[in-house]
C-alpha cells in the first residue's frame, strides 16, 4: 500500500466523496479528476495545501497543471518525486 496514494484517497473521502472515492476511480488511478468530477473547483486548492502540510513538500504553483495533478496516479508520481518527500512523514 502506497501511503501517499492512501492519504490522497482518504482526503478525497473526507472532503468530497465520503467513502466513495475508490468506487469512483473504479480501479483506474489514471482516471481524470476534472473530466469525471472527482475534484471540484476549489478542491484543488485544498488538496495542494493538504499535500504540502502532510508530506512537508513545497509545490511550485507553476506546476499546477493537468499533466501533474489530473489523476491520482499523476499526483502520486509528481509528489513522490519532489525533493524532501519522504514516505510516512
Amino acid at each position, binding site marked *: 500500500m502506497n501511503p501517499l496514494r492512501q492519504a490522497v484517497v482518504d482526503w478525497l*473521502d*473526507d472532503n*468530497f466523496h*465520503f467513502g466513495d472515492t475508490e468506487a469512483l476511480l473504479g480501479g483506474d488511478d489514471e482516471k481524470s479528476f*476534472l*473530466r469525471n*468530477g472527482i475534484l*471540484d473547483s476549489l478542491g*484543488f486548492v485544498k488538496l495542494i495545501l493538504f499535500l504540502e502540510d502532510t508530506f512537508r513538500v513545497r509545490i511550485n*504553483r507553476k506546476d499546477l497543471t493537468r499533466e501533474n495533478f489530473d489523476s491520482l496516479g499523476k499526483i502520486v508520481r509528481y509528489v513522490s518525486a519532489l525533493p524532501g518527500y519522504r514516505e510516512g512523514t
Partner: protein
Amino acid sequence: MPRVYWPLDEAQAQTSALYAFMQHCERETHTRFSGYLELQSWAVRDYERFWQLFLDWSRLGVTGAAAPVVSERDCAKARFFPGLRLSYSKNLLRGSAGWDDRPAVTGITEAGERLRMTRRELRAAVERFAMGLTRLGVGPGDRVAAVVRNTPEAVVACLATAAVGAMWSSVAPEMGEAAVLSRFSQLQPKLLCTHTEYTVHGVRRSLLGRIRTLIGDVPSLKTVVALDSGSGDGKAEVAFLPRAELEQHGALAMDEWGEFPFNHPLFVLFSSGTTGAPKCLMHGAGGTLVEHYKEHVLHSSFGPREKLFFHTSAGWMMWNWQLSALACGTEIVVFDGSPTYPTQDALLRMIDREQVTVFGTSATYLHALQQLGMPPKEVGAFARLHTIQSTGSILYDAQYDWIERDFKRVRIQSISGGTDIIGCFVLGNPLLPIHRGESQCVSLGMDVRVITAQGLRRHGEGELVCVNPFPSRPVGIFGDDSGARFHQTYFSQYPGMWTHGDQVTLSEQGSARILGRSDGTLNVRGVRIGPAEIYSIVLAMPEVLQAVAVEQAAPREPGGSRMVLLVVLRGGTSLDRALTLRIKKELSQKGSPAHVPAVIAQVAALPVTDSGKLSEKAVRDVLHRRPLSNRAAIKNPEALDAIAAHPDLRLPG
C-alpha cells in the same frame, strides 16, 4: 483605526452619483451637508423625506402617489409607499437614450460558450416568455419555482415571471433533493422552470431525478418548462414544455405589462434559522428595486458604462442583487460553471477577457487564490477593472494588501447584508476613504446601531440592529398569514428594531467591520444554513442521539470560519471513520455540499440549559474561548469543559 487603503480623492468624488444626489438633497431641503456623514445623519433622522427625494431623483418608473412614504412609523409594521405602483421588469428593461443596442447580459459557460444579448434582444425574449406564462395562466400572486444554472435564459425567465406579477424563487442545481423539497413544497408553485442538466468540471450531471421528485411531491405544479435541450436518460418520462414551445405564441409587449403595488411580492428567498423549516421570505418589488438602485447607483457608482460580474449562483441573493443592476444600464455577466475549469485561472481569464469593470466575489475565493500562490496579475492586466466587491465572509486587512500587490490596485468594497433584506447594511462609498478590513459606511437612510452591554449605541461593538423602517425588509413570510413568525424572527429580541443576527463594530468615522453571526445561523462561504436543517438530517440516523452545529474561526484562514458538528451517539457507539463519512454523505446528499461540516467530533454530552434546551451559544463561546455569559444557566457545565479540551476542536495559539 486601520490604515487607509484608498484615500479620498475629492475631485473624483465630486463626479459621483452620490455627490450629485447629495447636492439634490441640499437644494431640496435648503441644508448644507459637509459630507456623507452629515447626509446620512439627516437621511436617518428624516427618512421619509430622504426616500421621497431619492425616488424622485432616481427617475425610476412609478405611478401613483409618493405620499405617504410609510404606512406608519413603527419599524416592525411600516410599509413603504402604499400609494405607488410599478413594474420591476419594466424598470430593468426600459430603454434610455442609446441603451437599446448596447449589451445587457452576457452569458459565459465553463466550456467557453458565450451568448451576448443587447437590451433590445433581452426585452424581446422576456416579452415572448411572458406571453407564454400568461397563456399558461401564470399571473399575479402565483409562484414560479426554478432550479436553474446562472445563465441568460434564467434571467429571461425571472424577468418574465416578474413582468406578469408572479413570484420568482430559484435554487442552484447543486442543492440536494431534500433541501429543494423543503423549500418548494412550502411555496406550492404553479410552474417549475428548470434546466435538465448542469456541468461541473466538464462533467454533465442530470437533474431529471430531482425534477421527477419535485413533480411527485409538489402537487401544485402544473407545468415544467425546460430551459435547455439536455437529453439525459429518462427525459421522456417527464412532460416538459420546451422553452421554444412556450415562446412560440408571440410577445406580451412591455407596454402591456401590469404595474403592481409597491409591496407586491417579487422574489421568494429562503433563510433557514436555528429551528424549523426554511423560511420563505417574500421580498416586494418596490422595496427590492429602490434599495438595489440606491446601493448600485449611490454606493457602488454603477451606470451604463459599467460591466458587472458578480460570481454567484441563482440560489444566492447576490444573483437577484446583480440582476437589478440592469436598471441603471449596467451590463451584467452571468457565469455558468466552475471557476477553475478548464484551468485553475479560468474565472480570472474570463474577467480579463470580458473587460469586466466591477468584479463581485467572496473573501473565500480571494483567499483561495492567495493560498494557491496564483497572482491574478500574472493572468492578465484587467485593464478596465476598477472595483472589487467582496461579501459572504469577512475580508480581512491583509487581503487588501494582497489584492493591491498581486491582483491590481482597485477600489475594494467589503459589503454585507443578506437574504433577509435582499441587500446590504454596510457597503462602499465614493465620498469616503477605504480603510483595510472595513466596509466604508452604513447604507444611506438606514439607522443601523449596535446593542452593547451598555444598551443601544451608535458606535462600538455589538449586535447589529436597524431602528428605523427601510423598504427592503421582506413583505412577509409565505404561509405566515398572521405575521407572527416574521415578527418573532426579526422583532422579538429587541422590540421595535430589526435584529439582523450579525455582530458588528461601528466606528465614529462611519465605517463598519462585520465580526460574524451573533445567532446560531451558519455561514458557509456566504450561504446561510440553519442548524435545524443539519439536525433534521443527522438526527434521522439511528446512531445519533443529539447534535449541535456551530461556526468556529478557521485555523488557517484569518477572517474565515468552519462548521463544526458535535454529536452525542447512542449507547456505546463510537465515531469511527466509517460513521464520520456516512454522516458527511447524508448531509451532502440530503442537504448540499455546503451542509457538510469541516469537523465532526463525538462528545459525551452537550450543554443543556435549565429549561432543557441544548445551548448552541455556550458551545460557540467555548470553541472561541470567549467568556461564557450563561455558564450559570447550564445544567452540566462539565460538558463545556470536555468540549474545550477536545483535541479536534482546539484553535491553535
